[in-house]
């Protein structure tokens, strides 16, 4: 099995439609408004956008899939890595905005036109009429485009020829940028083209008009002219000012023909002007669709998504019957078979395994002992009662299980038996469809047979899952691996620090499991956290206010649950602490972390 098991960018529309499960994000996206889908890598942004394309809508209809379709047609515009490369090449060389912007605009506009032409190709193909009429329609459509944009008469009136022409002028631009980069020409000699000085919405809107006017002139039955939604995927790799420009220009103007659907990472810097954002929101100019779990409601939605996926793929209606309900009681009884004389009672009833563990720990740990005394629980007989059951025992249960399991110098096998069960299957995938597929693939054999998966087998699968997630994150090509302190360093330091806080440090009923950045933290550290948020290493524990979408200072952030079984951290959010305070013991080893100075 390859590392990437599902990436919508490389999958055919047909495959995407087949595996698609309609969710609330999709229903929000198909509303007749501009949208920003915000979420880390793998959260399904590309899938959502591709589901809006005419091809996907057509396939869904053909297959009679019960999926609501939008009233508009999505034009899927993949981000061109060329942007990033050219942007990096020239950003240090050209400082004048008026010379720099047309270059990037050209590349954006070329991408938009190519995407529109691909969609128009599909639209023409899907019209029910004689081939000759389609040929004539294409001929007239391109002829009008040539006229409107004053293009040279040097290619036939076909979609494929216009695409080749666009590639040609982009190539000419790229060559002249490279010539400039290597100092063969001056900035004034860069060869701009017709795409350099116009706005993509003007281009798209004009082509929309030309297409539907041509159709109407051909007297085809198709008289409606739906809006086109320009669906920009991975726009985050393009320059920041460009994204802001697209939003600023297009989100407020009420274009009759167009909608804009953009993807963004959770920490994306999208807005220049807070006043504009507030105003735009009030006027319902756009909706922001956060695709991560940030509160109990979004957690419930994720649970429902997972259940639907399992039902669709394996026809399993009650996943809990197969994966069992997670109980620390059962996990500890299984892992601590050496403890004799414990009863089968559940939780902290006298004689039960958890009661015994708490009693043993309290006997050795003064802090825990004192804590119990403070809570009026007898450390010699720490049974629960109606007063303490929820407020104390339930709260400290994961902590004492982890402390006991990993306590002292006990050697443990790699897979931690505390991770298993239905709830863990859902929550460890942390709102990420790609991760859900990865974990479900590990369970595949059992799910197909609809057989109960034993606790130890589950623990093994979950450990494998966590290792593969860890490897993906630390091997990330953009993970600053060339730096003294890379993304891997941060993940390792944070993971081990959080594990130690729970398991080894002084007992507390409210340990630190999440962190915050402050404005005085080193710039490099902030960059690592921002990039980690982008690729899903970290999760925001709240839905960031639109007004300050970029500002992650003082926001509660945690490691992705996908990594918890790797670092052996209990899956529960306790309190947060400054990241510098969590990591402090490691900083002396990485002096370069501070070289960039304060943020």
């Amino acid at each position, binding site marked *: 099995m390859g590392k990437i098991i599902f990436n919508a960018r490389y999958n055919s529309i047909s495959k995407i439609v087949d595996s698609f499960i309609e969710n609330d994000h999709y229903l929000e996206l198909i509303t007749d408004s501009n949208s920003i889908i915000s979420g880390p890598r793998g959260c399904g942004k590309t899938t959502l956008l591709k589901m809006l394309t005419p091809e996907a809508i057509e396939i869904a209809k053909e297959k009679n899939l019960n999926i609501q379709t939008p009233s508009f047609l999505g034009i899927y515009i993949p981000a061109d890595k060329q942007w990033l490369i050219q942007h990096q090449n020239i950003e240090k060389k050209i400082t004048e905005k008026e010379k720099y912007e047309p270059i990037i605009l050209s590349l954006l506009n070329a991408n938009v036109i190519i995407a529109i032409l691909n969609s128009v190709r599909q639209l023409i193909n899907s019209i029910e009429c004689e081939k000759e009429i389609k*040929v004539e329609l294409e*001929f007239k459509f391109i002829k009008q485009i*040539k006229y409107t944009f004053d293009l040279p*008469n*040097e*290619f*036939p*009136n*076909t979609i494929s020829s216009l695409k080749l022409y666009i590639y040609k002028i982009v190539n000419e631009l790229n060559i002249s940028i490279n010539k400039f980069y290597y100092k063969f020409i001056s900035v004034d000699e860069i060869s701009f083209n017709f795409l350099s000085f116009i706005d993509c919405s003007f281009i798209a809107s004009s082509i929309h008009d030309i297409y539907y006017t041509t159709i109407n002139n051909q007297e085809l039955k198709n008289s409606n002219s739906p809006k086109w939604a320009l669906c920009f995927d991975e726009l985050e790799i393009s320059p920041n000012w460009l994204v802001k420009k697209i939003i600023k220009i297009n989100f407020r103007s009420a274009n009759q023909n167009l909608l804009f659907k953009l993807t963004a990472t959770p920490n994306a810097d999208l807005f220049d002007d807070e006043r504009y954002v507030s105003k735009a929101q009030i006027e319902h100019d756009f909706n922001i669709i956060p695709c991560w779990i940030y509160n109990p409601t979004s957690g419930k939605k994720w649970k429902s998504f997972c259940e639907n996926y399992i039902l669709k793929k394996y026809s399993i209606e009650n996943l809990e019957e197969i994966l069992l309900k997670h109980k620390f009681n059962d996990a500890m009884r299984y892992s601590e078979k050496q403890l004799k004389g414990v009863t089968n009672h559940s939780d902290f009833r006298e004689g039960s395994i958890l009661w015994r563990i708490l009693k043993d720990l309290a006997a050795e740990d003064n802090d825990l002992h004192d804590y119990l005394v403070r809570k009026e629980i007898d450390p010699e007989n720490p049974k629960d009662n109606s007063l303490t059951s929820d407020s104390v025992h339930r709260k400290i249960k994961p902590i004492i299980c982890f402390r006991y399991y990993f306590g002292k110098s006990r050697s443990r096998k790699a897979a931690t038996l505390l991770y298993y069960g239905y709830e863990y299957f859902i929550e460890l995938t942390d709102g990420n469809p790609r991760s859900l597929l990865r974990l479900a693939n590990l369970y595949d054999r059992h799910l197909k047979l609809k057989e109960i998966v034993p606790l130890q087998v589950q623990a093994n699968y979950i450990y494998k899952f966590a290792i593969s997630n860890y490897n993906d994150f630390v091997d990330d090509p953009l993970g600053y691996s060339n730096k003294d302190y890379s993304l891997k360093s941060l993940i390792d330091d944070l993971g081990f620090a959080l594990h130690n806080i729970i398991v080894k440090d002084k007992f507390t009923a409210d340990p630190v499991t999440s962190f915050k950045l402050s404005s005085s933290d080193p710039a490099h550290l902030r960059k690592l956290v921002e990039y980690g948020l982008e690729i899903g290493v970290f999760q925001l524990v709240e839905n960031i206010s639109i007004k300050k979408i970029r500002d992650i200072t003082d926001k509660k952030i945690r490691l992705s649950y996908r990594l918890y079984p790797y670092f052996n951290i209990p899956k529960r959010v306790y309190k947060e602490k400054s990241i510098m305070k969590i990591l402090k013991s490691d900083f002396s080893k990485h002096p370069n972390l501070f070289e960039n100075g304060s943020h």
Partner: protein
Amino acid sequence: MSKEIIISIISDLHCCHSSAKDSKSSTILFSDKLREPTIEHPIEALKKMINHEALKADYLFCPGDLSDKIDIQGLISGFNFINEIKNEFDCPLFITTGNHDIDSRRKYKEFTSAVYPTKYFTSSYPSKNTLEKQNYWADGYYIFEDANSIILNLNTSHESLNEEDAKKIQIPKPILQRIDSDLKSRDTSKVLIAQFHHHPIKMSNSKLEYRDNDVIENGDKLLEMLIDNNCDLVIHGHKHIPMLTNHNNLPIFSSGSFSSLQNVAEHSGFNTFHQIKLIPNGKSKNLKIKTWIYTMTRGWKQSADPYFWFPPNTGFGSRENVVNLIDKVERAMTKKEKMNFTDFLKEIPEIEFLTPYEQEKLETELKKKSIEFVPKLPLNPDYLTNYSKNG
């Protein structure tokens, strides 16, 4: 000949059992390959395409190499496969022997000669007709004749009885004379098609290399004799690369390989299936050649790439040279922005019978004058456009 004749060509199957040495890099046709998914089985996929496109054929040709490295299971299954296609077309099959169908290296010591397995793996190879079979094994050829056609089925591996002889492909002079005399006694108004495995003229493997030591040594004499007998078409296999050569107005068609990967994979080429339509044009014949390429994911389809590997639609026999045609096209399009291709063919029908080289040259030259076929000529154009007239 008064009627059009359509022939189908399946060459170089190189069928073998999947356990045979290096089989996976040699071929995609295995005797033990499962029939489903149909698209992944070249024969099943071809049957599907034949039915889907309602293809017809008057004759089916197989110019050799049913098996790969004389794999007997491959020989038996390859023969059965080709007969399945023959049954789809319900037409006569002409099959000849390739170098891989002969045990010239004496792999099977239990047999008394190099041709033993080829001769006796079935009673109907290469023909069910006893006389044809006797002639084929005795003299290395037989001639078939029906109301419309004469077909020479020649075994160029006839003398390859050991490894040394297999390296020198030669038609014995007496046999050439006998064929010549046989053909001269036939009705010259019928279409004459000759089929054999090896190539009669040198062919390069790629632009940079020229390693070709298995050409028929006296291929020039063979071709002379065929031209002298008004041969209309020569078909051969062996090279695996589809190619059309004009040899003194005799079309020599080198068939692409149906399922062998040798000489195909290294060129990033495709396995091919061909149909040639012979259209009477006075004393000679014009050809229209259709080619399908195979991919495991799409089955047999005509390529969307006009000039890579071999054009999906091409021809032979135009009497007009390309320079004259350019003039004619330019004149036809002087005042027109666009012209329907069907109407255009009424004015200049020769366009349909251009060879791949002529098609590409014509398109290149016309483009310089802002005239283009849409789509390109090998893709069956919808129209011709002169975009200098736009607006």
